[in-house]
């Protein structure tokens, strides 16, 4: 896409350099710590599955039982891999499931092996974990193959649609219909509250609130259903779910194994909008993104959310700053630009003069700052009301802004946004809206030429300028401090506060996690 804004390359470089500096300290922290979720994810890679159905607290995944016990017995600062595989050898048990059962039965005593035991345990762990990563590699290869056979969507932006019935079986029906009606990407949103569970639920589920639980089985069911539809339609239908939350790393692993194609994964969303401990989140997002990189999963970041709690004009530059930080964290975790679904949204108060042109300015800025990223363009929500006619029109202009500014992924807006979770008919009408705009005005971008020093260009330059200033301040005061002060989405989150902080452990210097190495190096053995 030819540039329309003529951003000054030096300013852009400065912005990126500042983002890198601002992120650096946090990245160092992420390197220096592990979390219960990272360790559980590691053991899931190593092959632990299933849950302890006998537990009074309801199904508790075996990984949780094991990691909690390891932590009790010998702490996690050395990682879970050594104690677990050492125990496996000592008690010579067939597999990790048996180990888990024995753990539950209380017959296992974990400790950190030394010397030859350590080497042996390490080798065993690496072999097991590598096996896990190879199945992720196979899933990735399979995706590439299916895309090659069925093909990608014929048009950009890709049409991204949410289903949220709470019941995986209803979800399957609605997802299939949505795909037939033109959706290219299906996102199953999660039940409220799941992101604050410190374990991943098991099995097929039917009773979520305003969303469906993210479980390995639900992933499998939906992916299988979409594979059928893809075949039927001769178009590869992508599947999205959410990594963010207390189980980011584990869900990333499950998503990789079950061949999800995109996952919501933001370096700060959990902190800001779920009050999850910042350190916990920064550690978890890093590991989860390494897994996504391996799995070839496109991440979706959550800058849109800031504009629901802060004003979309005043806070426009915070979106840009967050995008640059998300980019930096992603690159550091090994994600290439093609996998960066950076988020932004059409959330300016529609009563504001020139609101549509302001949207265009912001959307173009993102487009030109991240030319190779599959940007995710999200619809109006905050200013949607019960006036569904007005809402349908707003969504139409949102769609138009999307095509005018060359967005990559378009999250379809619903006229009932302010009323209910989408109905079957809302989705159908919304798709008709998108299709009309794409078909009738899709090529209008050819005629959209903002004057070089006109309103749109000026606004874009202003936002970039404000972003650079803010990044400089963040670099100086520190990102954690900036978050604590409510820089993003007006949410104030101190580093020591938030849920799941007790799940963060400083690594001992002989900490071992074969997954980390295999992910870093890309090794398969």
């Amino acid at each position, binding site marked *: 896409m030819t540039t329309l804004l003529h951003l000054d390359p030096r300013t852009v470089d400065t912005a990126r350099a500042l983002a890198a500096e601002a992120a650096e300290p946090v990245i160092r922290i992420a390197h220096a710590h592990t979390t219960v979720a990272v360790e559980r994810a590691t053991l899931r890679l190593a092959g632990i599955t299933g849950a302890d159905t006998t537990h009074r607290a309801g199904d508790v995944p075996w990984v949780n039982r094991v990691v909690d016990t390891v932590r009790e017995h010998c702490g996690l600062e050395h990682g879970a891999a050594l104690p677990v595989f050492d125990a496996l050898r000592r008690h010579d048990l067939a597999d990790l499931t048996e180990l888990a059962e024995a753990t539950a039965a209380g017959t296992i005593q974990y400790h950190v092996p030394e010397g030859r035991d350590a080497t042996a345990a390490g080798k065993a762990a690496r072999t097991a974990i590598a096996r896990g990563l190879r199945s992720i590699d196979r899933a990735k290869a399979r995706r590439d193959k299916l895309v090659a056979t069925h093909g990608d969507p014929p048009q950009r932006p890709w049409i991204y649609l949410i289903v*949220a*019935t709470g*019941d995986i079986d*209803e979800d399957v029906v*609605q997802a299939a219909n949505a795909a037939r009606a033109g959706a290219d990407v299906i996102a199953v949103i999660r039940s409220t509250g799941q992101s604050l569970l410190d374990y991943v639920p098991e099995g097929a589920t039917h009773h979520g609130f305003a969303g469906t639980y993210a479980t390995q089985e639900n992933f499998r069911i939906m992916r299988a259903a979409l594979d059928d539809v893809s075949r039927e339609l001769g178009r590869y239908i992508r599947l999205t779910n959410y990594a963010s939350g207390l189980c980011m790393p584990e869900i990333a692993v499950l998503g990789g194994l079950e061949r999800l194609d995109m996952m919501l994964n933001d370096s700060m969303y959990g902190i800001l909008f779920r009050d999850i401990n910042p350190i916990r989140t920064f550690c978890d997002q890093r590991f989860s993104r390494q897994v996504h990189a391996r799995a070839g999963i496109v991440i979706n970041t959550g800058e849109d959310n800031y504009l629901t709690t802060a004003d979309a004009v005043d806070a426009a530059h915070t979106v840009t700053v967050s995008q640059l930080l998300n980019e930096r964290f992603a690159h550091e975790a090994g994600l290439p630009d093609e996998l960066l679904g950076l988020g932004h949204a059409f959330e300016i108060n529609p009563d504001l003069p020139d609101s549509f042109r302001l949207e265009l300015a912001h959307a173009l800025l993102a487009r030109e700052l991240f030319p190779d990223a599959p940007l995710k363009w999200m619809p109006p929500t905050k200013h949607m*009301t*019960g*006036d*569904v*006619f007005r809402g349908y029109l707003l969504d139409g202009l949102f769609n138009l802004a999307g095509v005018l500014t060359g967005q990559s992924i378009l999250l379809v807006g619903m006229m*009932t946004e*302010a*009323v*209910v*979770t*989408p*109905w*079957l*008919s809302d989705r159908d009408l919304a798709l008709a809206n998108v299709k009309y705009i794409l078909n009738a005005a899709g090529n209008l971008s050819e005629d959209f030429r903002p004057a070089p020093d006109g309103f749109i260009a000026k606004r874009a330059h202003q936002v970039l300028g404000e972003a650079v200033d803010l990044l400089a301040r963040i670099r100086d005061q520190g990102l954690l401090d900036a978050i604590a002060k409510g820089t993003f989405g007006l949410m104030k989150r101190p580093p020591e506060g938030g849920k799941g902080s007790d799940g963060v452990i400083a690594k001992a210097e002989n900490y071992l996690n074969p997954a980390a190495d295999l992910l870093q190096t890309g090794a398969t053995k």
Partner: protein
Amino acid sequence: MSRNVRPYGDATGDGMVQLSFTLPVPHGPRADGAAQQLANKMGIDPALVVHSHPIGENFSFFVVYGSVSHLVDLDAVRVVEREYPLLTPAEVNGRVKKLLRRKLVVVGGCIGTDAHTVGIDAILNIKGFAGQKGLEYYRELKVINLGAQVTVPELVKRARTEKADAVLVSQVVTQRDAHIQNTQEMSAAFREAMGERRPMLVVGGPRFDPLMAENLGVDRVFGRGTTPGEVASYLVHAISTAPVAPTAAKGVPA
């Protein structure tokens, strides 16, 4: 499919519907309450007034979402099923030839002050509708299209002089039930003027309910999205069941 169904929002049986309307009531909580009451009376419960805004000083507009208690009894649904086969133009021509041994005469137009000819033209003109050619295209049909704003006496007169087998009338304007009144006036005039010997009377328009034929005093009513083929096929079906004079003379057994 189950005999009874309910509206479907995002789950089977949830009964969800969307409703909007205006009340001649100043905007405010009382108005919202009034809107809710109406929704409840319509069987929507719970009914959520999700939006309301004033229109001028004395009116308020509402959007309501909620679940209707009513069930739809599918077996009780009454529709005019097409009781005749859809024929190709060739088949239509063949049957007409066989049945009448002459062309079937069709006189059409918009009566009253209605000047919406696009609909009737879609049925009659060669150009046709929805990819189907209109009746003028049928070799065995003689079509006289009188166009717009034809008075009833004029129509009757032409029908008689042309020895019309069928009269096709279009009504598009429905304000104050103009379409109903005009059609009834028209059918009455034909009964009056020709009694038993009156031609087939067919009316159509986007707002007609096909179930209304009897009360309109016509033989058939066509609604939204009618195609010329349907009409031609109906005409053939009608003449093959209800006998029509091959000459102007008395009818022959079908």
